[in-house]
């Protein structure tokens, strides 16, 4: 049996190369999708969790992980999808949040408004990623993907996506 000589730390660095196909500035490490890696000789198990149940990016991400592992020489690969504990935006790295903002998407606030059932709640104070104003308003609870809401800045008038708390 050939053993692949690569440690976990290097592997995490390699996985940084795999991006979320829908938000290509974020790696799957930034998003907190990779929960664990188990290396066993030339076999490997990567444990991942979806952001949303119906996230259409998961199949592409799984395929890209497989391609990467093959290039690294792992013969036996297992990608396990776990649902619990459920993914939360808290798992997104600070680096990831900075990259999101540079890309023009407002990063998630630390407050978890989604957990509240309160109707017609006041809009979260979301900072405009373009001009940094907090003078913004929500246009729609759902944006271009399930994980985003649509906002508009009342100062610079630009619409923008907000990666909503989850």
């Amino acid at each position, binding site marked *: 049996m050939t053993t692949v000589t690569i440690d976990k730390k290097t592997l995490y660095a390699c996985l940084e190369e795999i991006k979320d196909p829908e938000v290509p500035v974020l790696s799957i490490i930034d998003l907190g999708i990779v929960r664990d890696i188990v290396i066993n000789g030339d076999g490997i198990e990567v444990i991942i969790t979806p952001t949303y149940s*119906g*996230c259409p990016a998961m199949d592409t991400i799984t395929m890209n992980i497989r391609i990467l592992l093959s290039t690294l020489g792992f013969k036996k690969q297992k990608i396990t999808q776990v649902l619990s504990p459920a993914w939360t935006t808290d798992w997104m790295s600070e680096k990831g949040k900075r990259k999101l903002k540079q890309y023009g998407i407002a990063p998630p606030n630390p407050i978890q408004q*989604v957990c509240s059932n309160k109707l017609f709640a006041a809009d979260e104070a979301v900072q405009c990623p373009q001009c940094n104003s907090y003078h913004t308003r929500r246009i729609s609870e759902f944006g271009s993907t399930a994980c985003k809401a649509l906002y508009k800045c009342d100062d610079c008038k630009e619409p923008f996506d907000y990666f909503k708390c989850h």
Partner: protein
Amino acid sequence: MNQDSLINYVLHLADNALILGQRNSEWCGHGPILEQDIAITNISLDLVGQARNFYQYAAQLINESKKPEGSKAAPSPSGERVGGEVTEDSLAYLRTEREFKNCLLVEQPNGDWAQTILRQFLFSNCQYLLYQQLQTSEDKQLAAIAEKSLKEVTYHLRWSSEWVIRLGDGTEESHQRMLRAIDELWKYTGELFVAADYEKESAIDISKLKDPWLDKVKEIFNEATLAFPGKTFMQEGGKQGRHTEYMGYILTELQYLQRAYPGSEW
């Protein structure tokens, strides 16, 4: 819970999510305004995702329950007609109408925006209460799916509640349309809280969810200035596979490709 009941129970949860997801997806490109078109199709996506998780679990249970060759295995529910290894896809695409165990409410036509909104509200309200209980289930996989889905359903419930209020307490026209929607859909809500045989073995007593469900409906209808409907005949049967006439048409469209070109992939 015995294995057959558990499989049927998981399929019931999956079918509810799939059929409502399919119904909502009919709005894609037809929503009243762009933002709400996106909202309803995102809800579709969440529901189809939940359905996939339940179907994957059901497929695993069905495949495990197939006894080794020669031991005269009893056919597992809904698995027998699919043949070979059961997958999430075969469960969605190759079962017949009578094998689907979704409640009647989710298969009802979209109607106008009011009817779609009301259907979502009545269902999300029930699903929210159910998943809250299910996330503490002793069945670890069901608990995990419920925990994951509950965050999404919280959004669906909040969004649909706000729309019920907006339309009910809106214009004369929107108010009338909500009344018509209630008239159309209320008779399919009784079934939600009558346990099918496979639900009776579950640790969750579904009939106990009826009161908190009614409280929420009353709260939202009150806010929406909509009169609470009186006692009426309740139609049942979906959970047992006896569907309304609409179900066959949904499956015809949903399953068309796999029926016409079996096993095709892209």
